[in-house]
């Protein structure tokens, strides 16, 4: 048994849900989290997106550049959706690939992370069965 923890963009929640159904793991728990990733060392990977966001902002908005910089380089915390999915060992690869495929964008950074953790035991509350059959 494995627990798959995926941190994804807020607006990819629906895509991720659909991808999970397709991958055969319809059950999941999701909640809102705040987070940040590694610092961006290379400014060029975020330059395109920064220019696009700056164009959206009005001229009178001060500190916009600072704000956008903070978000894009990873100094600030920003909202993400955290999914936890319980899966049998043999299904992990398919589910991970499905989540990756559903969440990839062209923004170079900020698409999220997936962690796979071992689970020692699980219990289904309704029947009391334990182990693999409870997943």
């Amino acid at each position: 048994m494995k627990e798959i923890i995926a941190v994804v963009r807020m607006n990819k929640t629906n895509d991720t849900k659909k991808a999970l159904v397709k991958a055969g793991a319809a059950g999941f728990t999701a909640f809102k989290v705040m987070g940040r990733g590694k610092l961006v060392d290379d400014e060029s990977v975020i330059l395109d997106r920064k220019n696009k966001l700056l164009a959206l902002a009005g001229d009178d908005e001060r500190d916009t550049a600072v704000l956008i910089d903070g978000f894009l380089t990873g100094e600030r915390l920003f909202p993400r959706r955290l999914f936890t999915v319980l899966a049998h060992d043999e299904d992990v690869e398919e589910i991970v690939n499905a989540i990756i495929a559903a969440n990839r964008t062209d923004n170079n950074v900020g698409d999220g992370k997936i962690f796979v953790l071992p689970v020692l035991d699980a219990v289904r509350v309704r029947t009391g069965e334990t182990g693999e059959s409870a997943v």
Partner: protein
Amino acid sequence: MLLVRAIIRPEKKDEVLAELAKAGFNAATVVDVVGRGKQKGIKIGGIVYDEIPKALLMIATRDEYKEDIVSVILRAAKTSEKGAFGDGKIFISAIDEAYTISTGAKGL
């Protein structure tokens, strides 16, 4: 790889995150949670508060940085020299695999 889960006081969250970033661990996921510890909550007058707001930090790291991260959190999340009930807990569990979605690359 390890997943460090730290439950700390919400007012200490910014300080701990700043200290972690200073020590080179920028990445973290933060969740607002409620809970109680061994002390069964706080009793003030006749009222028992057993859903105390806390912040849950989740930090994925390589095995060799475990001690550094834990010591930074221990130092930054502690209130006063001696510490106090309610300062929090740190749990560490194993991560088998990690993926970066934008590249599909395996590993942290």
